[in-house]
């Protein structure tokens, strides 16, 4: 009787251990999923809060937190109308785009040309130029502000969008050239030689072989350059004073934060709009972002 019970309990406990053991990997996976979901929720929460608040009437925002919409959803688009029209957010978005898009295109094109020259051509002063680029890379923009502003005023660039392009492209170029240079150096020499034997001139090789291969890294650089340009507050703030057009979105928002007469609603709306543009860009190009960064490291 005792022996049988011992045997039975042994069998049961063995079965129990076995079943717990087989559940453990699955449990671990669920745990990992849970942690990831929590992190996503945490990261997404501010944007969620922003979006929800921007659609709530002013009175509600002042009296209760944004999460109350889950219980009592009351939405309005008033904040957006106010922001776009009275607060000139529409114009600001336009100005920001007018600054960011050409700035990005110029940065990517010029970085590509510069990186190609550094990798493929041997010319006197190549090393000196590379060192100069490194020096520019670590130069803090702040020290250039006063001299450049004076120069801009003298030349008549102050308050113009091309002036901003010049500044932003100039300061992003060293980074861009180095990023692209790493990738271009990973293209095997034999590919160039093969193109050469096939009859391609240097220019033809650049357009038909190098540029198509570099699309991922150019996309990453483009995303980064666009983000930096779009989010730039300091330069437009300082260099675009006195211009007749709407200030860029960053400057506009900075001003809105200071004034409280209109309430927080329009600020929420304006902020969300300023976030939405880069968000859309990254979501549509996100596969290039990661691939491009790693692309230089692993040769295909």
């Amino acid at each position, binding site marked *: 009787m005792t022996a049988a019970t011992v045997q039975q309990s042994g069998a049961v406990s063995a079965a129990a251990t076995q079943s717990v053991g087989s559940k453990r990997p699955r449990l671990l996976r669920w745990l990992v999923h849970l942690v990831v979901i929590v992190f996503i929720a945490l990261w997404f929460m501010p944007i969620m809060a922003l979006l929800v608040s921007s659609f709530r009437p002013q009175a509600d925002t002042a009296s209760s937190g944004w999460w109350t919409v889950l219980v009592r959803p009351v939405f309005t688009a008033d904040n957006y109308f106010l922001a776009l029209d009275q607060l000139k957010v529409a114009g600001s978005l336009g100005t920001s785009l007018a600054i960011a898009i050409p700035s990005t295109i110029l940065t990517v094109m010029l970085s590509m040309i510069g990186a190609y020259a550094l990798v493929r051509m041997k010319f006197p002063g190549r090393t000196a130029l590379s060192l100069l680029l490194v020096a520019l890379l670590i130069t803090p923009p702040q020290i250039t502000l006063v001299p450049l502003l004076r120069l801009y005023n003298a030349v008549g660039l102050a308050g113009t969008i091309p002036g901003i392009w010049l500044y932003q492209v100039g300061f992003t170029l060293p980074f861009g050239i180095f990023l692209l240079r790493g990738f271009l150096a990973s293209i*095997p020499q*034999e*590919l160039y*030689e*093969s*193109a*050469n*034997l*096939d*009859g*391609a001139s240097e220019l*033809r090789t650049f357009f*038909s*072989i190098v540029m*198509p*291969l570099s699309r991922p890294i150019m996309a990453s650089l483009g995303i980064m350059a666009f983000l930096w340009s779009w989010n730039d507050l300091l330069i437009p703030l300082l260099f675009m004073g006195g211009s007749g057009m709407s200030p860029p979105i960053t400057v506009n928002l900075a001003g809105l934060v200071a004034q409280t007469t209109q309430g927080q609603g329009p600020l929420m709306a304006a902020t969300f709009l300023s976030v939405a543009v880069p968000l859309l860009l990254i979501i549509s190009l996100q596969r290039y972002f990661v691939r491009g960064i790693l692309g230089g490291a692993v040769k*295909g």
Partner: protein
Amino acid sequence: MTSVSIDGVRKAYGATNVIHGVNIEIDDGEFVVLVGPSGCGKSTLLRMIAGLEEISGGQIRIGSRVVNDVSAKDRDIAMVFQSYALYPHMTVADNMAFSLKLKGIAKPEREARIAKAADILGLTPMLKRYPKQLSGGQRQRVAMGRAIVRNPQVFLFDEPLSNLDAKLRVEMRSEIKALQHRLKTTMIYVTHDQIEAMTMADKIVVMRDGVVEQCDSPLNLYDRPANKFVAAFIGSPSMNFIEGTIRTVEGHPSFVSHDGVILPMPSAAVVPDGVSVTYGFRPEHLALGKYDGIGAIVRLVEPTGSETMVQLRVGENDVVGVFRERVSAAEGSTIHIQPDPERVHLFHAETGLRLA
């Protein structure tokens, strides 16, 4: 109809000479293999013929044209690289069409040439695929297809089979040879594998340290190597060498090794007495004697199925024998071997040059 003439060609990187005066004549339609150990200059020479490296001295002629100062794309040659160098972002068809588009060849002609090359190489089902979707052997064929569509005067191959596995290498070897028979174009092929050289070449150029050691047909290189280096390089397993001197023994000249072993001499050899020589014989030219011949201690028996490789010790020397028959000697036992006297090679001990 193109011959290639390499005339006193030198190559220097700064002050260092890497190729010292190479002379090679390649006839129209010949398959010539440049072979040699790593660093001997064969790839550099090939690249100079292609136009990818500057020529420091001498002349290279393709046909009757001196091409020293002609740019690579105008030399009317095509090259197959070791790593194939396919354009990763283009399909197979586009890869092959690239050079033709650059030459301004019209679309119908382009498509015809690509279709023909694809047919020869068995690439027709793959024309719309990208290089990353192909296997190593298929990529190599695309590289060859790219070269074929250009109808060049000379094909250049830079170790094209090095990246393939052994079995595929054997298969591609015969395919390349068949291609050459079909196209009848002059081909210059670089490899470090002497078996590839022996099986594919009409003429082999053995190089070492930037100099041509010997330039001859495969069988001549095998039967009459000009020096000890070529004798050791060609043939696998490589030739056995024993050091010794020529002495008159019992009235006729014989080879006596430093440790006193007497080995038979070829009948036609005329070597004066007392000269220090290296005695060379190939592992496959050893016969097993029952009781006569030279005693050798068995160190290792390696049967490969079709033949048996035996590592032996003769006096102080390690000797390798390859026998058609099965050898059932135990390790440590003594067997008797006889080198075939007519297949023995004698080299001068210091210069390494062939004496007989």
